[in-house]
């Protein structure tokens, strides 16, 4: 066995990696639950990869084939309905855990130097995840997918100067159709995964280099202990992955993801058409504000959020730190409240 191991080590030297893992430590304190959110997001991404490949074996993009192939996956392919249900639920759970991960990182001030690039890369991963959701939502080509995507693309078209051109590139013409499915499919299964994996590697590398942030008040009181990453934190991480897996399995099995009737591009939009929950707040803002004002609002608030390492750079809990905390609380509650209002005001 030792001989085999040494031959393996000679060809693929993983010793230094094990060495790093053996000496890496993770702080444990009353807020360390939030440390698991990044790992759980990664778990859901792995699930997306596996189920996505399985769906890829059967899915056929195209105006005539997209809906029919998804219907076949759900009715003729053994456990196809389960794979699709897991894929769809895991996508939603992944977005939810990344949101939680982002807000927890924000409130722990994990965006401050030297972790500012971890913050930026994390936000880019969130953006890619939302794009995954947007492109994947269209692929079954049922009525909800068609009309919700149409609204999304129309919003893009409303952007000043470049909006119309971007929308045309997305659609592959003036209308949503076969070319749109083809382009969204290419983005969803080739471009986005490739970019995502690269960026994820960078993000994880930064996490390994800088370690976990300890909240200031806990650091000052020394109210924490440290445990080895390997094996202690890894076991704890696996425990949390199993909980996440159970939640996913319950949702996917008890509430299988539905498939609506095939999109009819000439039919009126169904009553109560709306995007996925993570776009509902923006959807509502667009309903109550004129589009250019809403666009400026989104751009400004998004920029303010992304650039928090610049306007709250200090390591002490000073005035700006408190402002950042208030901004975070207001943002979080506004997002939740507007999402709820958006659902309550649906037709």
């Amino acid at each position: 066995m030792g001989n085999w191991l040494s031959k393996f080590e000679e060809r693929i030297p993983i010793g230094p990696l094990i060495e790093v893992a053996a000496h890496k430590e993770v702080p444990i304190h009353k807020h360390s639950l939030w440390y698991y959110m990044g790992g759980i997001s990664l778990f859901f991404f792995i699930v997306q990869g596996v189920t996505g490949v399985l769906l890829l074996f059967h899915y056929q993009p195209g105006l005539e084939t997209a809906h029919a192939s998804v219907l076949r996956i759900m009715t003729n392919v053994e456990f196809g309905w389960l794979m699709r249900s897991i894929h769809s639920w895991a996508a939603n759970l992944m977005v939810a855990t990344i949101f939680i991960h982002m807000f927890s990182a924000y409130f722990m001030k994990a965006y401050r130097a030297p972790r500012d690039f971890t913050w930026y890369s994390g936000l880019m991963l969130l953006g890619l995840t939302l794009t995954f959701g947007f492109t994947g939502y269209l692929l079954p080509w049922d009525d909800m997918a068609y009309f919700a995507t149409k609204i999304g693309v129309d919003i893009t078209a409303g952007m000043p100067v470049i909006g119309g051109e971007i929308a045309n590139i997305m659609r592959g013409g003036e209308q949503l159709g076969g070319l749109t499915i083809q382009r969204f499919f290419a983005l969803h299964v080739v471009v986005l995964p490739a970019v995502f994996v690269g960026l994820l590697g960078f993000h994880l590398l930064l996490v390994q280099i800088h370690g976990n942030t300890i909240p200031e008040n806990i650091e000052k009181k020394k109210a924490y202990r440290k445990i080895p990453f390997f094996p202690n934190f890894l076991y704890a991480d696996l425990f949390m992955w199993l909980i996440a897996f159970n939640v996913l399995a319950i949702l996917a099995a008890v509430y299988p993801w539905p498939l609506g009737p095939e999109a009819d591009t000439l039919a009126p939009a169904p009553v109560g058409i709306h995007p996925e929950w993570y776009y509902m707040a923006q959807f509502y803002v667009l309903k109550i504000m004129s589009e250019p004002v809403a666009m400026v609002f989104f751009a400004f608030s998004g920029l303010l959020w992304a650039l928090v390492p610049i306007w709250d750079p200090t390591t002490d809990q000073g005035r700006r730190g408190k402002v950042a905390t208030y901004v975070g609380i207001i943002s979080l509650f506004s997002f939740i409240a507007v999402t709820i209002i958006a659902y309550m005001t649906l037709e």
Partner: protein
Amino acid sequence: MNYPSWTIDGLGSGWVIGLIAITHVFISHFAVGAGLFLPVTEYFARKHGRQDVLDFLRHHTRFFLILTAVFGASSGVGIWFSISLVQPAATASLIRTFVFAWGIEWMVFLVEVVSLIFYYYGWEKMKPELHQKIGWIYAITAIGSLFVINGILTFMLTPGSWLETRSFWDGFFNPTYAPSLILRILVCLALAGLWGIFQASRMDRENPLRTWLLRYSSRWLIPSYLVAGFVMFWYIEMVPAESLDAMTEGISGAGAGNLSILTRVAMLVGLMTVTIALMVLFGPYLNPTDFSTSKAVWLLVAGFIVTGAAEWSREVLRKPFAIRGFMYSNGLYYQDVEDKLKRPFLDHAPWAKLHPDVGTAMFKTQCSSCHTLHGYRALSGFLKDRDEESIYLFLTMLQQGEENPYRFIMPPVLGTEDDLKALAAYLAREIEPGVSETAVAP
């Protein structure tokens, strides 16, 4: 049909039993498992002179006594209240058939509770040998109570040759009796382990006993994982073929997956059983130092979900019967169907006459034991795309015997043509007010 109906819209009357019963099963199986956990661990501790373990057991007994003797016993009474309201006919049948067994069950339970009280108060006042004996008495009576109740529970799914012989013993030692008893004992041991893990996780992290107890309690789950899979296959072998058809073929369309909800939940039970094993491995067994009480709570929640899902699956597997081959879930006797099927419904449901109209009476008496209008198994969902005419045609299909595709999951509907029309009108009106104007031609 001979009793007044008790309906709860939204939750559904069946879930009133379900919520109480699942909680009771979770606690009572722990009571049986810990009935072994306590004296076995006490024996070990005394043999090896482990005073620290004995101190833990004394503490654990207090928690155990409060949880099982107070909450377990009161939820058990709650089951009696709820089943006699929701399923009065089936409850009466079970009492009549197993009056002798119920008598034994309550005797055994009495000894179980008394011995537990003695066991708890005897930690400091009894000689070790006597205390240990009391512990064994508790363990034997706890398993004894499971031995009895298991016969009655399994009888409802597989009455076996009792249907012909009406013999107490044939009904009691029915085809699923043995595999079910073994499965339940395995569950009891696993739950004893989970609760032991929970209790140990609350101890001071620096205490070396904590690590020992977490690993020791984890081992109580091992028998389940070694044997449960095989016993489950045995159990399934004993389940009637038509019940298994409901699992393997399913009834749902593409929109809801092409396996029935029963099959999907049963699959979840298997999956979550495996994940609990892995959670115990990565948590209290391999990483006891960093295992927290909150994680132990997650384990208990997972155990509760698996217990609930397994019990729910067993109940649904019995559909459309309360007692398979003998009584339908709405209290209709199987042997009466031919005689009563197309006779006026109110003739053989005297209590139903109290309802304002025949449609309401039909719904409350024949549908509401399984369905609600707008909540659990909502008829507003199942019938949403049907008008009154279509609902009526659906109801006539439920009278077509062997031609009825729903015969394996729903009882036939009793009543004349006018009764069915009245029920269709009621459902159309209640499900979507305003649609009932498109009435069925009289």
